[in-house]
């Protein structure tokens, strides 16, 4: 059962400003705020007026709202020297943006994102920075609006916990950190593959002991 080396696994790259865009829409979650700041500084340096055509939607808390906040804390760098958490809110507020909106949960941010896209014009560039599952959910919405690869940039920062889609019962299990997880819908033990669906914003989970019931390989924390 092929787990890695699958082409659908998304590849992300550090964000850079695309000054060919006429409007800029940026979504950030947790540590992603730092990446957005970096792009905004880049934009300010090359095209200062562009900040006035830039909207930023930002969720400072590095959690997925009510989901597994405690588990997340265990993989977030603890306060210490170089990795000290940065709070970009103040710096974002200091920029002359068209709009800065702060959020306290992912669904509210994404709902706002959707309604902005509804009224956006061609010439808009989308930037997303944050945990992979956040990027995936944002991309799923962007896809519905026919945004193509050359209009979207994404940088992965923070948790690599996965959304896992059960190919048997079609339930999605959130915040998966282990190679094998119990499906939130049917409780089958699912092997988490690199096979990714942009439409579902989830990795595929396949029953791991279908052929040899009860034979479950060692469970390890791999998506941190």
């Amino acid at each position, binding site marked *: 059962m092929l787990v890695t080396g699958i082409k659908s696994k998304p590849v992300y790259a550090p964000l850079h400003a695309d000054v060919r865009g*006429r409007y800029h829409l940026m979504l950030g979650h947790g540590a992603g705020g730092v990446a957005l700041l970096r792009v905004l500084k880049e934009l300010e340096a090359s095209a200062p007026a562009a900040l006035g055509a830039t909207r930023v939607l930002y969720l400072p808390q590095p959690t997925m709202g009510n989901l597994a906040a405690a588990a997340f804390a265990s993989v977030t760098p603890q306060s210490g020297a170089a990795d000290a958490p940065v709070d970009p809110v103040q710096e974002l507020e200091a920029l002359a943006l068209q709009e800065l909106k702060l959020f306290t949960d992912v669904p509210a941010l994404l709902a706002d994102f959707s309604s902005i896209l509804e009224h*956006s*014009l061609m*010439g808009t560039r989308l930037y997303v920075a944050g945990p992979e599952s956040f990027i995936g959910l944002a991309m799923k919405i962007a896809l519905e609006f*026919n945004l*193509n690869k050359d209009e979207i940039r994404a940088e992965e920062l923070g948790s690599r916990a996965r959304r896992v889609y059960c190919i048997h019962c079609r339930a999605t299990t959130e915040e998966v950190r282990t190679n094998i997880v119990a499906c939130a819908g049917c409780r089958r033990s699912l092997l988490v593959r690199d096979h990714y669906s942009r439409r579902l914003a989830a990795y595929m989970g396949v029953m791991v002991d279908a052929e040899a019931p009860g034979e479950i390989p060692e469970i390890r924390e791999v998506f941190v």
Partner: protein
Amino acid sequence: MNDAQTLVVEVKAIEAVTPLIKHFTLGPPDGGTLPAFSGGSHIVVVMKGAARVHRNPYSLLSPPHELDTYQIGVRRMEESRGGSHYMHDAVQVGSRLEIAHPVNLFALDKIARKHLLIAGGIGITPFMAMLEDLHGGAVPYELHYSVRAPEHAAFLARLDERETGRVRMYYDSAGHAIDFEGLLSRQPLGTHVYVCGPAAMINRVISTAQLCGWPDSHIHSEQFSAPPVGDAFEVFLARSDLKVHVPPDQSLMESIEAAGVEVPYLCRGGVCGFCLTTVLELDGELVHNDHYLSEAERSRGKQIMPCVSRARCRHLVLDL
């Protein structure tokens, strides 16, 4: 594609729709249906004239769901190398023509949220078929159609009848001009623009769209270049072990075909990249006239599209 894969069709009807454009209806000689196609497709018509063979690409303008005939529009070109004059002057109802199977290099984006179609003159033809694909669907679309004067507006009656409210006409004679910047700067996210017409119009749409921040993946254009004339030159075909003379008014591809060597092709207009040929030796320079190779590929001088490109050289060897 090569001539072994062509179909024979009979000219069923010819109508002069403007002073310069003739509308041809082509069907299988013995009835039946023709291969399926989607809006934006073209065929290559093989015209066996007395002196030479012409192979010209023409967009299909008939509804894609009607396959008992294909319809094409042919504009008489002032500087024709013979193809359009042959269609206008030599082809009659009942004439038989060979055509290559339809190929689509100008397809609608299937998940676009809106389609913006921009036509100039004879560039209306691919849109006539695209409109049939779009008609009655859930995705909004609009056509901006620019012509010299009302008498040059081909297929206007059909557009008026089918597409009321979705077509805007622009007549040069009345001083109308498409406000490209205005149009392209206020399109909703997820719009795709398609342009077919004179080179200047296509370039204008592409550069204006880019200026308005459009990414390339949302900009579509098609322009079949007639093979430009140039200096005569000699080419040696390495695999065929054959020397071929290319006269000033014949393309490299046509000259190679006349010598009995087949070159695979789809569009014959420098668009598709199918006839890409490797240059083995060159003493001189290539004259690239295609819309396919990148600047970097051109400057390397290792590849040529023989359908529209030529050479100014003393010595040229191709891998054919």
